């Protein structure tokens, strides 16, 4: 290797951008394949996601979940771990939030329930990540496989609990009783309306603020604490970390606890903020979408917020699109999501060598 360096903007900006563009280009081909004009479809998508107040609200509501799971996947990536169990951790986190709300909603005001439920969601999510983390750190079992298994275990556990214990009596479907309003996280449109601001009715609630706070916490933890330094060292070079006296196993367990806690907070948004009862399958794939968000956001909080808003826009815009063109399903958004994972994740090195080579040669010349 020569002394010449590849400019930073190439690695941080140009290559990721090319990968995303390629993902969108292939998505466009999918639209063409089903006989739709991709530009027209993109128009509906953008209008549905950003064209009116409530649309923006929905976009940010979806983005809230995606920020949480994106942070969860991303912080584990920082330690070189792949937490594919965000789905299960979010599910169990939601269980924690729901249990607290069901327990306290008739006796406590929101000001007490809200922080407790947030802690509850985080603790339950973290607890669900703890076992795979422990097994990875101390017993050497592969975290990817165990977290996948734990997704299925979480799903069966929730069905069991909902059907046998938490279902409201006399109801056919496995749904708990609706919380009293003291356990509802306020909608942002209700928060803003006394100020004379009308932002349109949408499920967007205070959990969005919590998600932004989560990004600040992430930033502080990863780059401004001693532990964050250890975390990044373990992720970059585990052997060097061990030489430097870092307890890799301990870092692994703690980062997974934090990762699980982030994922668990999805429950705050979904259960406390929107559904106001405990139900099945509220995680709806957000755990997996978090992988796309983390990859696209380049494991940085700002990137994660932007990527989450982009995917939130796709979810919301996709719903609008399916409404406007009935022969399109909202699932097409899942395809785009998958293509982003493919091109900015699995195939991230596809252009890297050529582009870096070009800049190296230019720098050398």
């Amino acid at each position: 290797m020569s002394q010449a360096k590849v400019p930073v903007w190439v690695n941080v900006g140009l290559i990721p951008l090319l990968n995303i563009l390629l993902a969108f280009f292939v998505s466009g081909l999918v639209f063409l394949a089903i006989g739709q004009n991709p530009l027209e479809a993109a128009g509906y998508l953008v209008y549905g996601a950003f064209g009116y107040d409530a649309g923006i609200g929905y976009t940010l509501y979806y983005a809230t979940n995606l920020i949480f799971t994106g942070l969860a996947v991303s912080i584990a990536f920082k330690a070189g771990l792949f937490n594919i169990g965000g789905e299960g951790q979010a599910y169990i986190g939601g269980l924690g939030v729901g249990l607290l709300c069901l327990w306290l909603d008739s006796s406590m005001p929101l000001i007490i329930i809200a922080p407790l439920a947030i802690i509850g969601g985080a603790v339950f999510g973290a607890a669900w990540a703890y076992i795979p983390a422990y097994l990875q750190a101390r017993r050497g079992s592969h975290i990817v496989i165990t977290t996948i298994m734990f997704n299925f275990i979480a799903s069966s556990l929730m069905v069991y609990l909902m059907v046998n214990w938490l279902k409201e009596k006399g109801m056919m479907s496995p749904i708990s009783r609706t919380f009293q309003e003291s356990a509802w996280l306020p909608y942002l449109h209700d928060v803003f309306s006394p100020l004379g601001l009308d932002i349109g009715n949408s499920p967007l609630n205070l959990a969005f603020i919590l998600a932004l706070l989560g990004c600040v916490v992430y930033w502080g933890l990863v780059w401004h604490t001693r532990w964050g330094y250890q975390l990044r060292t373990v992720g970059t070079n585990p052997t060097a970390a061990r030489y430097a006296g870092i307890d890799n196993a301990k870092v692994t367990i703690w980062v997974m606890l934090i990762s699980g806690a982030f994922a668990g907070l999805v429950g705050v948004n979904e259960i406390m903020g929107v559904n106001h009862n405990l139900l099945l399958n509220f995680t709806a794939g957000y755990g997996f979408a978090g992988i796309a968000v983390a990859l696209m956001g380049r494991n940085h909080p700002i990137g994660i917020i932007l990527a989450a808003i982009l995917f939130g826009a796709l979810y919301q815009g996709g719903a609008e699109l399916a409404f406007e063109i009935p022969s399109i399903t909202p699932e097409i958004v899942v395809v785009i999501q998958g293509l982003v994972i493919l091109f900015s994740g699995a195939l991230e090195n596809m252009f890297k060598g050529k582009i870096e080579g070009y800049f190296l040669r230019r720098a050398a010349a």
Partner: protein
Amino acid sequence: MFETLILILDATLRVSTPLILAALAGLFSERSGIVDIGLEGKMLGGAFAAAAAAAVFGSAWIGLAFAILASVGLALIHGFACITHRGDHIVSGVAINTIVAGLTVTLGLDWFSQGGQTPALTGDARFTSIVFPFAEQIADVPVIGLIYSELLSGHNILVYMAFVFVPATYWIVFKTRFGLRLRAVGENPHAVDTAGISVALVRYRAVIICGILCGIAGAYLSTAHNAGFLKDMSAGKGYMALAALIFGKWRPVPVLFACLLFGFLDAVAVRLQGVALPGIGEVPVQAIEVLPYVLTVLLLAGFIGKAVGPKAIGKPYVKERA
């Protein structure tokens, strides 16, 4: 009692078949060093392609061919990412699962306008049961009659194929030159490279075989076990096959037994729904459903035996350049 047992075992065979096919698929891939959590996606893609082609052409065999084509295509994408571009195997697998989950419904709605399903398949568009000779006649013979006519006879061709593939896989992996190379690239790719054999080529062949088997598994789901494609019909079977692969420690015969065990648990769970067992009471179905996953976690953690995968698994091969 005996009849119930036979019926449960009969159901076990039917439920295990896609697991066996997918787990053997994973075996080829992972033995060559390519982690494959995309079994799920390839199976789902195969199921959709099979049902769509069978609906259009009216032949289950053409469906099977398309299933294999689709699944091999996905396997090649995985290979392109992991082998050629040294991408992360897990990320690539997740990408494939995600793309297929969305694409099958999207294309299904566009092609058939039935909410993402394919039309119900009848007649030749499905693989039908093969009745063994004299199955009817000896059905009344005690014990053997029931085993022969219920358990062994009356499955479709893909079930029998899955069971034939197990010894075939054993033979290929452990008794042929290709198998030796396959295992070697999974354990020590540098040694294989030194011997003048292309690591990439061996791995590509492995993922193609993986694609073929996943395609058959998918075709089984939509054109044999069911009569058409349903959204997300693989329902985690790919992940369960992965669990069985680990549970069987990446060896064909133990993998077969792991698949049969998981299939058996599934069949039992269906039977036990709402039934009170003497002395134990009613066992929640979910408790049986999670057993495959719990067992795999315990095994991986070394609490019941130890599962050690191929050494070079998940690591991209980089030729050393002096």
